[in-house]
């Protein structure tokens, strides 16, 4: 009499107020697509994360070595009113958890505490966060960051632009996300010292045969080195954070798919039952009439 397969959507009108089978199946298809996309994004960022972590391991001694002089010479921030410089290192691409927002949050509190602050932003996402309220404090924005792994030349380029722009500061810091483990990163800051701060360091007289040329070259090179190190750390944190975020998204999509499939089947069965009832009651009415 009536042959049905589960895939056939019934032609009759449904009761108003209950999701139609067609709507549920459209929703189901779109959530399945989303799950496929998030799963593939997770695979891609897992591959990028392994590469980034490998490069970070090689770059760590370099980055830590670059900070040693400032620690050993006990360089302190310059006394002065030239303001603060923050270099916020992040990237252009989203869907990576709290990576960009944590940096944006710290920059906002810093600017609120010290309005005479200039910010150099590396990466579009943080620019979007800061643009609305603190557009005046933004000194420079670096884009096209994060698509390919950073090389020293990139950091040198950024350092050169900062030096060329002639920004003066008494105290400075580089804000970035330091990589801890696959599931965690920590937003840290590295102090940045101006040339005057280095020249007035308490232990500087211990260092022999220094002239301003050497100090200038040294600070410029170490700016590039520190920037490179922070870019590498940030890239690894970003990839691992994206991996976790996409994994969670795939799991959530999977749960939604389960729930929707359940609703779909129930609705389908309800439709069939209703049709049966209508047909049988119609047939019974005809019989009693006769």
């Amino acid at each position, binding site marked *: 009499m009536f042959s049905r397969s589960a895939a056939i959507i019934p032609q009759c009108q449904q009761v108003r107020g209950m999701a139609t089978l067609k709507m549920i199946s459209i929703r189901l298809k779109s959530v399945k697509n989303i799950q496929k996309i998030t799963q593939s994004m997770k695979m891609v960022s897992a591959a990028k994360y392994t590469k980034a972590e490998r490069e970070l391991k*090689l770059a760590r*001694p*370099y980055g830590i*070595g670059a900070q*040693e002089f400032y620690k050993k010479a006990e360089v302190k921030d310059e006394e002065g009113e030239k303001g603060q410089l923050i270099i916020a290192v992040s990237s252009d691409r989203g869907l990576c958890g709290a990576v960009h927002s944590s940096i944006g949050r710290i920059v906002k509190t810093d600017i609120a505490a010290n309005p005479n602050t200039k910010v150099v932003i590396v990466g579009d996402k943080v620019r979007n966060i800061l643009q609305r309220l603190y557009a005046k404090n933004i000194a420079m924005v670096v884009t096209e960051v994060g698509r390919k792994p950073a090389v*020293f030349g990139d950091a040198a380029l950024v350092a050169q632009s900062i030096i060329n722009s002639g920004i003066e500061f008494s105290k400075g810091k580089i804000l970035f996300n330091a990589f801890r483990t696959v599931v965690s990163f920590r937003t840290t800051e590295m102090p940045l010292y101006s040339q005057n701060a280095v020249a007035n360091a308490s232990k500087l007289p211990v260092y022999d*045969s220094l002239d301003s040329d050497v100090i200038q070259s040294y600070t410029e*090179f170490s700016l590039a080195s520190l920037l490179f190190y922070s870019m590498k750390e940030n890239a690894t944190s970003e990839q691992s954070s994206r991996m976790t975020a996409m994994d969670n998204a795939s799991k959530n999509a999977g749960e939604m798919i389960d729930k929707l499939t359940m609703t779909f089947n129930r609705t389908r069965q309800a439709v069939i039952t209703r049709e049966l009832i209508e047909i049988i009651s119609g047939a019974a009415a005809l019989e009693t009439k006769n």
Partner: protein
Amino acid sequence: MALTRSALRLFSGRFTQACQVRGYADAPSMSLTFAAPSQVLYNNISVKQIDVPSFSGSFGILPAHVPTLAVLKPGVVTVFENDGSTKKFFVSSGTVTINEDSTVQLLAEEAVPVDTLDISAAKELLAQSQSQLASASSEVAKAEAEISIEVSEALVKACE
């Protein structure tokens, strides 16, 4: 009698402690961190001596060298390790920091072992940079070409 003997013993103990003089021969060794952005060559390894080429002249670093900072010139860095072996690396540029506690950070922009250098490629690079200088128009381009020549000359020298 017994008093003097015990007093002597007391004194001799004190004296041996006070007489431990340190000479430069057994100075604390220095720990070297020699790294480039994409590779680590030495990470806090104790070595005997390092020869570095810098803009203020080539000099050798021994333990207890006076603290200083220097900017590296393109050239060869020689590391004399504790077991007597020597390793040579070509560096393009960078900085060297010698701290009070005898730690040395040698941060090079690029560093390669000298035996991986190819002399014909180095000579070709030299010829290229010389022609670049000849055709350079702006100050910046001239400076870049001169830097390129300096690096290639040092490369050729390192290969020989």
